[in-house]
């Protein structure tokens, strides 16, 4: 006779357990970590590069890049930033196992901020917890204003949203209010910054948000010792 056995287990349980281990590692070294997600061409590398340029003198940072070639990392490496390539071999997302395996390639003790660049994709990366402190989602004007409606899971899981390529707003029929309405339904009160990597517009606000998060994290970390 066939018997029904209750399981009730999350399919990504294994990933979530590893993400928990990453979280513990990051806590142990006081490293604040960000996971950057966007479509291919949305501006992940450009946003990261500009962010690194702005913060490199005040924060010790490192970058982990999920990609198939090292191209994206060259500019950062030339700046003297510790970088680590996770060769994804064409995978559609980073998972906790890939990030966990790559952690030893960076000296976490020497990093205040770890930036992880995920694979360009608005679907798959949303499902995998990487154990970071915040998920940064980048949308961009040429992609269209319907993205929150087509890829709800990605926007639902974001902790901060950047709308890149605002310098092109005059050339596209991008309805910022329609876009934001979709985002608000999925993720009420989500921090939102319209930016342009090209002109630098909006970067002050985004960097202020990031500096505040870093300061809060560091303050929380030093509390138990004081």
């Amino acid at each position, binding site marked *: 006779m*066939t018997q029904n056995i209750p399981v009730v287990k999350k399919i990504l349980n294994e990933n979530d357990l590893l993400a928990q281990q990453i979280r513990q590692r990051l806590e142990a070294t006081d490293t604040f970590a960000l996971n950057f997600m966007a479509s291919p061409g949305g501006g992940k590398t450009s946003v990261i590069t500009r962010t690194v340029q702005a913060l490199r003198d005040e924060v010790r940072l490192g970058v982990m890049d999920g990609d198939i070639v090292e191209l994206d990392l060259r500019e950062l490496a030339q700046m003297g930033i510790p970088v680590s390539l996770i060769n994804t071999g064409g995978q559609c997302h980073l998972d906790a196992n890939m990030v966990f395996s790559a952690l030893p390639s960076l000296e976490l003790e020497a990093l205040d901020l770890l930036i992880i660049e995920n694979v360009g994709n608005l679907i798959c990366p949303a499902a995998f917890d990487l154990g970071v402190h915040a998920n940064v989602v980048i949308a961009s004007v040429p992609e269209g204003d319907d993205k929150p409606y087509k890829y709800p899971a990605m926007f639902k899981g974001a902790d901060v949203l950047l709308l890149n390529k605002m310098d092109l707003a005059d050339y596209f029929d991008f309805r910022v209010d329609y876009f934001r309405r979709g985002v608000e339904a999925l993720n009420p009160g989500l921090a939102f910054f319209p930016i342009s990597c090209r002109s630098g517009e909006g970067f002050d606000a985004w960097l202020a948000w990031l500096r505040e998060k870093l300061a809060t994290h560091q303050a929380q970390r030093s509390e138990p010792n004081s």
Partner: protein
Amino acid sequence: MHELGITQSILQIVLHHAEQAGAVRVQRVNLVIGQLSSIVDESVQFYWDIVSEGTPAHGAELHFTRVAARLRCDDCGHDFPLNAEDYTCPQCGGQRVRVIGGDEFYIESIDVDLAQDVPQTT
């Protein structure tokens, strides 16, 4: 797009629970998948037949319970299915809405044949 990895995770969990229960064969796997978890049923079943080969779960039927993503209007409390073009409340036109489900992604149960059943069934 990553259904192969997902299918391997499902198999791992299923085999673990089947073994714990002393099962010799898994007949059916009952999955609950929310609309926001972008997973294609046919694709998982396709990979399942490959990755489960040689295990007690080979040939098991995967049963998907799909949970639609729903929104609730903050203004009037109306519940409605998520529409991929507009999240406006169809009842009152409210635009303050929130997602109230659809990200489920778990194995609910498995139907198995236990070891002591075998002599009776063969």
